[in-house]
């Protein structure tokens, strides 16, 4: 497909957004769009132009069960602000006591960490296990190419046991994944963590179903 012919590109983008670009041509255009920001901008402009057509339909309230399922699919909520506040108060108290009793005490470093890198060696995510073992914190560092309509899922790989899901990887920014007993135990027995490609929302079976994209060794402090 030729980017140098603006009229053709404009029509392809329009028919992609409209939906009349179908089959192999649609898939080809989708790949082109993902790899060329110029094409992506044409698509976004058409999405914007035509969005008003969706507003010509009368809204329909979803059933309450739909939201409940969405909440479940995005995983357990991090602790509430109140909990965070209480934890901070306790931390301050403990630190104060520590300061008094044990002058060497510093802010706790992570108990373990793992770095995911691309084949080219670019660092993509840093995963840190909190000192108290309550959560892992995943920081997206490099440019992560998040597959369209898919999720990337983080797994602990305990030796001699099945992988245990720790949650979904962020495309950017930092994300805390709270750990339950089972996840903590699996991480304790694991030498490696891995990222697999899964259907949206994560593996439906509780075990990795898609290709394993990255594996990283766990370095314990």
């Amino acid at each position, binding site marked *: 497909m030729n980017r140098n012919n603006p009229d053709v590109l404009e029509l392809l983008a329009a028919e992609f957004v409209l939906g009349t670009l179908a089959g192999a041509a649609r898939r080809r255009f989708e790949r082109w769009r993902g790899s060329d920001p110029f094409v992506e901008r044409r698509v976004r402009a058409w999405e914007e132009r035509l969005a008003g057509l969706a507003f010509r339909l009368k*809204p329909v*309230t979803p059933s309450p069960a739909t939201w409940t399922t969405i909440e479940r699919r995005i995983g357990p909520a991090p602790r509430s602000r109140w909990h965070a506040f209480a934890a901070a108060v306790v931390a301050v108290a403990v630190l104060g006591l520590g300061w008094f009793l044990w002058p060497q005490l510093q802010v706790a470093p992570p108990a373990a960490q793992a770095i995911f890198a691309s084949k080219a060696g670019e660092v993509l995510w840093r995963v840190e296990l909190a000192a108290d073992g309550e959560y892992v914190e995943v920081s997206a560092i490099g440019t992560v190419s998040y597959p369209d309509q898919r999720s990337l899922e983080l797994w602990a790989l305990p030796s001699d046991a099945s992988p245990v899901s720790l949650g979904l990887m962020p495309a950017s920014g930092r994300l*805390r994944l709270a750990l339950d007993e089972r996840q903590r135990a699996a991480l304790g027995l694991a030498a490696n963590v891995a990222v697999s490609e899964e259907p949206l*929302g994560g593996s439906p079976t509780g075990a990795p179903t898609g290709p394993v994209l990255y594996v990283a060794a766990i370095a314990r402090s």
Partner: protein
Amino acid sequence: MAHSAGLDSEPEAARLLAACARQDRQAFQRLYELTSPRLLACLIRLLRNRALAEDALQDVFIQVWSRAAQFQRDRGSSWAWLIAIARYRAIDLQRRERRLVPGGPEDFEAVAADEEPHDSLMALGHRAAAALDNCLDALQERQRHCILLSYQDGMTHAEVADRIGEPLGSVKSWIRRGLTALRRCLES
């Protein structure tokens, strides 16, 4: 009765989406409450089945949650971004399972045309709403009809031709000319 996204909801939707990028769950729930009735209407219309549409709505919001940080406001409105995610999801599903089970007649009635399209279009901003209205009106009737059948019902060229009983070649060229005219009109 569905609460429709009110007038000028774009700034709020954009603010909520930015909060979702910071993993703010309350904002995510609020964004869902604000935008899901409109998105569900699109999905039902495209998938012709209420249950499938509700499943697709889940996928859409999972995607919104995991990709909120990728939304760039300078490239367009949050409403357009959300609607695009919903429509692509439905088009994918629709074409993957060609033989969709149509729901009952109530599924169709549920997504009748909004009797106050102009008011709801205001959610996108006054100028954009008025411009789209005017430019659609300026199209030839058959161009407008073909574009709406593709956009709202997810029909391919062949399905549109079949529905309106016109040759495939004519439908293709009406859609192309209509889109080109629409762009020129909106940019003028």
